[in-house]
């Protein structure tokens, strides 16, 4: 021990070692990790949500895109993110001017119009090959003011009413609520008799946004008219707010004020609510998990209001191709080919995604009338005329930038919730929402986007 010479590190040694370390850290990865070979072909990067039906992601990520990539000499990389992170991710990609070649929103994104290519060519090519797209798709991806298609929609998801047949049968409505007034009266009876409330969301999330618009539209109210003028402040809107207040007070509980997008699924499957407005994800989950309650949940079309029977799409798949995408041509080709193969997508999604080009799934009514998973097998047959009662966000006009901002800042959700709980009078809640909308409209009009 006595011979051991303790070596001290001099400043010079330290700097030398630190310098070598820094160079190694910087250069190391490029030596150790081999670069991806681009010689074999281009890469197509796709970003989309984690589908409610896990089997769809499995098929899309591992089968369809791999086969398509092999056929077209491209490596397809699919990234999936949660629904709540879509807008933030889009903002980040735009800010960096770098990201995915195909980016999928679950709602119309007209506020990104300046950042995306005109998708007209894709619609034209698809129309030539697969027939006309549905009006819902066009209204959700086209800006009539600038004459630009700011996105491309492959599919939409119906938003029927999911109801408990035992509970509704018990109050004499075996086929579930047919009108919004049935929902209020029948829902109140069920709540009184069984202590189980109606579950229509009243919080800052997408399902509430759709449900509140369905109530407004069915009462003859809307945020804008066909030409895109702000018409929120109307007698009809006030009536729809008063209706939601009555529905909340008579047939619901405050739990709907705390909901996120999947709370209504959980509440329905836990037997805690009698009715929800949702896609078929509720019943599909019950079927896939073999939950006994599944057979007791049926679906019916959107409720009729005093003016019309109308509902929303539950979600709207809208792909965009950024102007800064590195593989624009590949992305365009992918979308056109995907529409050609949509029958497979429809089946992989277990009838969750309905086609925007109806001819691509010609036997859709037969398929949904004979579902091998559901009990009864024709549980989803009620969706055969979905296009007669499903409309877009922004009805009766197009989904424009102002409509998108009103939607994503939950202006209407908050308006209805405040009035429902009595935090504001219906008139005051409407006045506040209108003030918010006026500012949004002024902003987008100044930008000549609406």
């Amino acid at each position, binding site marked *: 021990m006595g011979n051991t010479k303790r070596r001290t590190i001099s400043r010079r040694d330290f700097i030398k070692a630190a310098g070598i370390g820094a160079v190694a850290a910087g250069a190391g990865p490029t030596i150790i990790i081999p670069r991806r070979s681009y010689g074999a072909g281009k890469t197509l990067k796709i970003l989309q949500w984690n589908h409610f039906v896990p089997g769809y992601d499995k098929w899309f990520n591992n089968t369809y895109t791999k086969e398509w990539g092999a056929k077209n000499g491209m490596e397809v990389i699919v990234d999936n993110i949660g629904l709540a992170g879509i807008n933030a991710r889009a*903002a980040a990609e735009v800010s960096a001017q770098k990201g995915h070649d195909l980016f999928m929103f679950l709602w119309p994104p007209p506020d*990104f119009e300046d950042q995306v290519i005109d998708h007209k060519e894709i619609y034209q090519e698809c129309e030539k090959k697969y027939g006309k797209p549905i009006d819902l798709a066009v209204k959700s991806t086209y800006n009539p003011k600038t004459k630009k298609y700011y996105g491309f929609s492959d599919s939409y998801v119906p938003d029927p009413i999911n109801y408990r047949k035992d509970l509704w049968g018990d109050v004499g409505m075996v086929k579930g609520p047919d009108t919004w007034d049935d929902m209020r009266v029948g829902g109140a009876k069920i709540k009184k008799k069984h202590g189980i409330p109606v579950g229509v969301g009243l919080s800052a999330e997408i399902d509430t946004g759709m449900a509140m618009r369905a109530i407004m539209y069915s009462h003859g109210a809307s945020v804008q008219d066909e030409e895109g003028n702000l018409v929120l402040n109307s007698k009809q809107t006030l009536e729809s707010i008063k209706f939601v207040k009555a529905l909340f007070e008579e047939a619901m509980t405050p739990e709907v004020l705390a909901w996120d997008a999947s709370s209504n699924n959980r509440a329905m499957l836990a037997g805690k609510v009698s009715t929800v407005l949702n896609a078929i994800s509720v019943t599909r989950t019950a079927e896939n998990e073999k939950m006994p309650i599944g057979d007791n949940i049926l679906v019916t079309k959107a409720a009729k209001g005093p003016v019309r029977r109308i509902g929303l799409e539950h979600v709207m798949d809208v792909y965009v191709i950024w102007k800064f995408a590195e593989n624009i041509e590949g992305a365009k080709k992918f979308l056109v080919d995907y529409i050609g193969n949509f029958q497979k997508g429809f089946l992989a999604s277990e009838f969750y995604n309905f086609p925007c080009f109806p001819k691509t799934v010609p036997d859709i009514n037969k398929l949904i009338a004979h579902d091998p998973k559901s009990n009864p097998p024709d549980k989803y047959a009620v969706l055969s005329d979905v296009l007669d009662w499903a409309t877009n966000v922004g009805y009766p006009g197009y989904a424009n930038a102002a409509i998108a*901002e009103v939607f994503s800042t939950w202006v209407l959700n908050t308006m209805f919730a405040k009035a429902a*709980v009595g935090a504001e009078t219906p008139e005051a809640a409407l006045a506040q929402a209108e003030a918010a909308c006026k500012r949004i409209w002024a902003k987008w009009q100044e930008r000549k986007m609406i």
Partner: protein
Amino acid sequence: MTKHTQSLADNERWLGRVMIAPAIVYIVALVGFPFFLALFYSVSNITVGSTETSFIGLENFRHLLHNRTFLRALRNTFVFAFVSQALVLVLAKTLALSLLKDFRGKWVVRLLILLPWVAPISLGSIGWLWILDSVYSVINWTGRALGIFGPATWPIWLGQPTLAMASIITVHVWRLLPLATVILLGGLTSIPQDIHDAAAVDGAGFWRHNFQITIPLVLPIMLVAMLFGVVFAFTDMIVIYVLTRGGPYDTTQVLASLAFFTGIDGGDLAAGAAIALFLFPVLAVSAILMLRLARRTEVT
């Protein structure tokens, strides 16, 4: 080694500059640049999807002063920050004093107290989301099983404004408590034992000892802990984002969450930046004052 490197290694002045440069570059790139960008955004009409933007002066700030949601968020921010900090300080002091004592299993207790801090906050908040869930709340089920909640009692923790605010404050306190405890514990252990012994000999009781000896001596470090906590409470939004998303009907919105929902989710970057920067002058002045106070009261 080259002649140039040799001269750099021997030159105190230049070596200091070179060695501090990475930290400065880091701060300028990740704090300074975004800050000045946010300043610019707040006086512009930029949106997330826009390619052009123009200067609109203080219009965004003027609009905020007439926005009820913003005013509510401003009030909530102060309530959230001060209530949570008051609770954190009292609880952290109590915990730190307890942890000063020797007892069996002390290290396990220390580990448990530190867990909320070392676990990812998003994960912790998701755990709380389930604890406070409207259907599956473990608090409600336990309360009912124990007969504390009657058949008609089922608190909706995140769906009623007062309960929702109390919930987010509770989770925030749970999260910040470990850091504050560790900081205070560090301060307490640095007080020389002979001061405590002298106080004991002079007959000082618990409260006199606490208020006239311990607190004055740990005040500088308490102020640092409080500064961290206040800045955190004013600028953080993860707990609110995960638990309530500002609801029910915007009653738990704070400036940080409102800025995110307006600027990123809503696409109005300019308004989002204005909301985020609204309290910057107040925070900056508070931070300077607290640091000065901490320095003045420092015991040397």
